[in-house]
């Protein structure tokens, strides 16, 4: 019995399934329900533990439909890797129930859907803007909002907090000291803003304001052809840009139904794991800086530069490589590149050990991080944590193991798991992950498959330059693909990869045209950072700084 049939049988006891549409599209299980059934269906999934993770909530705008919006929920079972998409149509001005009572992690995702589309969630106590500024009028991801219509912001929001039952968040308590940190503050990494009320040094309540780097990725994706979206994906998590390229291209390829060649897969794995290492370098290095330890940063940056050099040799760019294309890679690796990667691995292995002893064995570092703001495994799941933070809390969920792609299933590597979920464990997990990534890269480099680096489908991949300039067929193919564009079939798909910060998901809706109809990114640190006010409550301010550093919040993917 397929997964969908099981769900159908299961649900039949709870709600009338005549109103539910069951589909299996492009490898995804999809349920379309009426919005009145939402709470019944979702609480059933949650309570029976059929799906323990609420991965994402987003809206889609279909202006010509009777009910204009569709709210889309992505669910995941972390035990067997099964996924389910639940969709509920909602008309303009209509309410849909908030899932906050089931998953606290629904908080920011629902606020975002409200901000972007104006979808109203009943029972959400803080349904206000999250990404756009407070003077912004309208909802930008609606199809009738022009992509380049800017609205100026003339003032910053005063200190405010979330509403609690019976407490208005905009009224400050005169017994406590209000404090504002950021967005221009070294510990806030440039774009985060934290507001807190302090009793002495203890945080009584805290709140985050985000959106200072909201540069409209999703709207830009809707106004650009598929291949031109790739450079935008680079700038999501810019600390590990190639991983975003891979995640996006993998999604489009799945919708197109193409399998990329072995060599391209192996090259993507190497790029991803190198990116994971340099992402963790930033996280560990700047984490040390935020605690006052500058040495690790300078040490580690030497090695980040070495990876930049490898990237430069591969494709010419250092940070934002845009190395993948839909269908494979942009070009093959130059001669000897894989040997250079192996040499780097050898050097890096020593460096990881050195950093490990410099940070993890350091008495001051231990005192500043051990037992600081721990997050329990059950809470982490509730919030929608993924990646190193979830694993630090003791849940061994890794998409490379749970749902292996690109041959990860046949590679030998371990998934490090912490026990306490405190700041120390997060660095412990990250440093061990660097070792495991090195192990993966060495295995792949030593068994590099031959063959082509891209598929050669004329409707998907541009011909090589020598063919464009050298023969009429190449020229025509090039012309056709540029004019007509890459056109996936009508449909929708959700696909995820294990990025450095956790599950990086892309929900792609195609209407058969050359641009994506809707592209929603599920950024890992969005789910993680929303827990910040709860996690640091009752802790000293200095521990909050250590916590925000350990969460490795990258504004590019947080605000998109």
């Amino acid at each position, binding site marked *: 019995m397929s997964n969908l049939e099981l769900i159908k049988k299961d649900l039949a006891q709870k709600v009338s399934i005549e109103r539910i549409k069951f589909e299996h599209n492009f490898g995804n299980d999809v349920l379309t329900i009426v919005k009145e059934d939402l709470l019944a269906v979702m609480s059933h999934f949650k309570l029976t533990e059929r799906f323990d993770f609420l991965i994402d909530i987003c809206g889609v705008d279909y202006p010509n439909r009777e009910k204009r919006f569709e709210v889309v929920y992505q669910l995941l079972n972390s035990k067997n890797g099964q996924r389910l998409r639940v969709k509920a149509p909602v008309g303009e001005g209509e309410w849909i129930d908030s899932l906050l009572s089931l998953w606290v992690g629904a908080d920011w995702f629902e606020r975002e859907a409200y901000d972007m589309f104006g979808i109203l969630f009943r029972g959400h106590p803080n349904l206000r803007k999250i*990404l*756009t*500024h407070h003077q*912004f009028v309208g909802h*930008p991801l609606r199809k009738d*909002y*022009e*992509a*380049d*219509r*800017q*609205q*100026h*912001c*003339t*003032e*910053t929001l005063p200190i405010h907090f979330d509403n609690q039952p019976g407490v208005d968040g905009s009224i400050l308590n005169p017994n406590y000291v209000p404090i504002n940190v950021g*967005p*221009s*503050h*070294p510990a806030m*990494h*440039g*774009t985060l803003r934290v507001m807190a009320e302090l009793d002495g040094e203890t945080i009584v309540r805290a709140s985050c304001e985000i*959106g*200072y*780097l*909201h*540069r*409209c990725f999703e*709207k*830009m994706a809707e106004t650009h052809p598929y291949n031109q979206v790739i*450079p*935008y994906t*680079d*700038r999501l998590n*810019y*600390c590990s*840009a190639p991983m975003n390229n891979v995640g996006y291209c993998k999604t489009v390829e799945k919708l197109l139904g193409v399998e990329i060649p072995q060599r391209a897969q192996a090259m993507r794995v190497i790029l991803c794991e190198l990116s994971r290492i340099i992402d963790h370098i*930033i996280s560990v290095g700047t984490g040390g800086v935020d605690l006052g330890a500058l040495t690790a*940063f*300078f040490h580690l*940056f*030497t090695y*980040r*530069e070495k990876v*930049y050099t490898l990237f430069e040799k591969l494709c010419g760019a*250092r*940070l*934002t490589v845009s190395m993948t294309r839909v269908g494979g890679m942009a070009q093959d690796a130059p001669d000897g590149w894989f040997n250079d990667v192996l040499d780097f691995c050898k050097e890096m292995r020593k460096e990881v050990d050195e950093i490990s002893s410099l940070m993890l064995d350091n008495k001051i570092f231990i005192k500043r991080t051990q037992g600081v703001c721990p997050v329990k495994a059950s809470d982490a799941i509730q919030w929608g944590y993924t990646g190193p933070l979830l694993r630090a809390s003791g849940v061994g969920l890794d998409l490379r193991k749970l749902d292996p792609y690109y041959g990860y299933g046949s590679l030998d590597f371990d998934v490090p798991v912490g026990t306490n979920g405190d700041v120390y464990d997060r660095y412990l997990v990250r440093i061990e992950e660097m070792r495991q990534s090195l192990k993966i890269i060495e295995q792949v480099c030593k068994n590099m498959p031959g063959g082509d680096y891209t598929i050669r489908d004329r409707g998907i991949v541009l011909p090589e330059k020598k063919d464009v300039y050298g023969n009429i067929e190449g020229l025509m193919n090039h012309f056709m693909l540029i004019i007509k564009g890459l056109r996936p079939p009508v449909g929708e798909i959700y696909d995820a990869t294990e990025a450095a910060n956790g599950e990086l998901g892309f929900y792609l809706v195609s209407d058969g045209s050359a641009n994506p109809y809707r592209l929603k990114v599920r950024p890992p640190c969005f789910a993680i950072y929303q827990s910040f006010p709860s996690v640091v409550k009752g802790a000293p301010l200095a521990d909050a700084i250590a916590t925000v550093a350990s969460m490795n919040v990258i*504004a*590019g993917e947080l605000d998109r």
Partner: protein
Amino acid sequence: MAQDSNPSPHQGPAVITSQGTLVPPTAEALSGMSGTQHVDDMSRSFALTTRLDAIIAWGQKNALWPMPYGTACCGIELMSVMGPKYDLARFGAEVVRFSPRQADLLLVAGTITEKMAPVLVRIYRQMLEPKFVLSMGACASTGGFYRAYHVLQGCDKVIPVDVYVPGCPPTPEAVLDGVMALQRMIAKGQPRPWRDNWKAPDYV
């Protein structure tokens, strides 16, 4: 202490009077610079002639204290500029200050959104004169490829910019080149009409 309005040659090192002119030391003072003197004494009796504005510009250009306003990808490349390989310290600009009141070079590195614009203006106004702005990368300079509803189309819409560095993100070499261009501007005392005619937006 009352200053002599008509200074006469005096014993000791060169001094700058309240009128801003440099008074050379006497021949006796200079003749004392023999090889047998201690370094400490030499420093007191060493003399050079220059224009006041030139020596101030020299000091300014070689001791720019940057405030990194890194908001996005360029902020990561800025770390490389500061980091061990490219090392901005070689150009005298290694004292990174995160307080605008202690900095004289604002490095805008990354996209400035509409939401961020009032914050950027406030930071700029908090900096003390003389102050300079370097806009790093396509986004900070023009909005880059984000022709989008929430992105300010260049930080020069709200603050005066002295040097634009192209690139997405620019290579660290390009940023160093930008800093050197700014140093040349300072050394030459180049007029900065964009700075002089700048009016703060009527908010913040």
